[in-house]
């Protein structure tokens, strides 16, 4: 028997054990098909979760902000193409940033971009956590995320590529986000993140290092792509096998680095 508890304040909601409801696009599936696995749904109406606000650290995005709101917000134009690649219009009116952070493989396309951008999450008790630490502990963590803070970046600094079987809509065979501080391959300090290539979004550190130390030309890109699978842990699913994912990852990373969408 499911109980629904509604809270007007995030901090109070986080103290109640149960499943925190974002847009429900994953959780309500579970409610519909496996209600016996859910005892409590925690609904939070705190307006704080809906805010999008720029401050000195970057842009604070409430966990309840939807993909549609990201697409429509002038300060988030860098993330708009990523949000647009998620599901279809009705889904984007529902799917939240908070839910995307917790979405299991192969979901979490926005989270991949947030990892490449070196965003950080804020928990309801005020704790801040960088994305990598967040993902490392995700399966164990209990609690509520209230915000994600994204550093200010210019368009051109983020490249995103989603590989799927059907377009538009279609779930990721993999997604790739690359942050290029210089806006082009000629700069240093690139960060590369892969989605659907492991249990959580993962950084491709070997490829980053190859890019950092390599020649800033096609040979450097080729070197980075050839090692991009190191440290990733793809799995088989209905969309693609782990073998296939490993084989095509270098091709898609090259296309992403070269700015193909």
């Amino acid at each position: 028997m499911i109980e629904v508890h509604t809270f007007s304040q995030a901090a109070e909601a986080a103290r109640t054990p149960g499943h925190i409801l974002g847009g429900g696009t994953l959780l309500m599936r579970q409610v519909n098909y496996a209600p016996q696995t859910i005892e409590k749904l925690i609904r939070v109406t705190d307006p704080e979760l809906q805010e999008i606000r720029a401050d000195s650290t970057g842009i604070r995005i409430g966990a309840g902000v939807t993909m549609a709101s990201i697409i429509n917000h002038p300060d988030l134009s860098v993330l708009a193409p990523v949000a647009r690649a998620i599901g279809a219009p009705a889904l984007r009116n529902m799917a939240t940033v908070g839910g995307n952070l917790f979405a299991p493989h192969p979901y979490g396309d926005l989270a991949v971009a947030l990892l490449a951008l070196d965003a950080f999450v804020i928990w309801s008790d005020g704790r801040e956590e960088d994305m990598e630490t967040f993902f490392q502990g995700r399966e164990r963590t209990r609690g509520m995320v209230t915000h994600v803070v994204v550093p200010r970046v210019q368009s051109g600094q983020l490249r995103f590529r989603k590989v799927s079987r059907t377009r538009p809509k279609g779930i990721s065979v993999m997604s790739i986000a690359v942050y290029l501080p210089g806006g082009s391959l000629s700069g240093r300090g690139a960060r590369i993140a892969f989605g659907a290539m492991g249990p959580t979004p993962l950084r491709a550190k070997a490829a980053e290092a190859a890019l950092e130390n390599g020649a800033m030309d096609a040979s450097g890109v080729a070197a980075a792509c050839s090692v991009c699978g190191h440290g990733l842990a793809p799995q088989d699913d209905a969309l693609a096998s782990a073998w296939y994912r490993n084989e095509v990852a270098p091709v898609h990373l090259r296309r992403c680095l070269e700015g193909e969408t």
Partner: protein
Amino acid sequence: MAKRPISFTLNGTETGIFVNEGQNLLEALRREAGDLSPKFGCGQGTCGACTILIDGAPHLGCLTLAEAAQGRSIETTSGLADGPDLHPLQRAFMEGFAAQCGFCTSGMLMAAKALLVTNPHPTRDEVIEAISGNLCRCTGYEPIVDAILDAAIRLQGRVA
């Protein structure tokens, strides 16, 4: 199981119903409010047959917690026709053979309505994008896309 009262506007009419905790809005609309126009296809967000408008924007009824509809404005296909006069979208679908078995039609119509309200002159690609979350196993989509473009012309100068 405790029932909870909720109220909302359904196609312009104040509506009050009792819902079960955890019940989805699609089921609540069909069982409690008696509006059978949104369809249950999959219950997992994949087919779009349950597409309804909440405050004008398309949502999946099957994945919306019914309680979250409190105080909102909901539109379904039942509210499209004006008495005996079909909505231009319905007319275009009918005349363009855009409905075969009809199971997807209600969701298609609502997704299309949401598009035409915000974008009265969509391109073919924009129509395809707007219905990309709605599966049709009968028509092959082309007649549906044509019908939505046709409805946009029929609506010329009017709000969808």
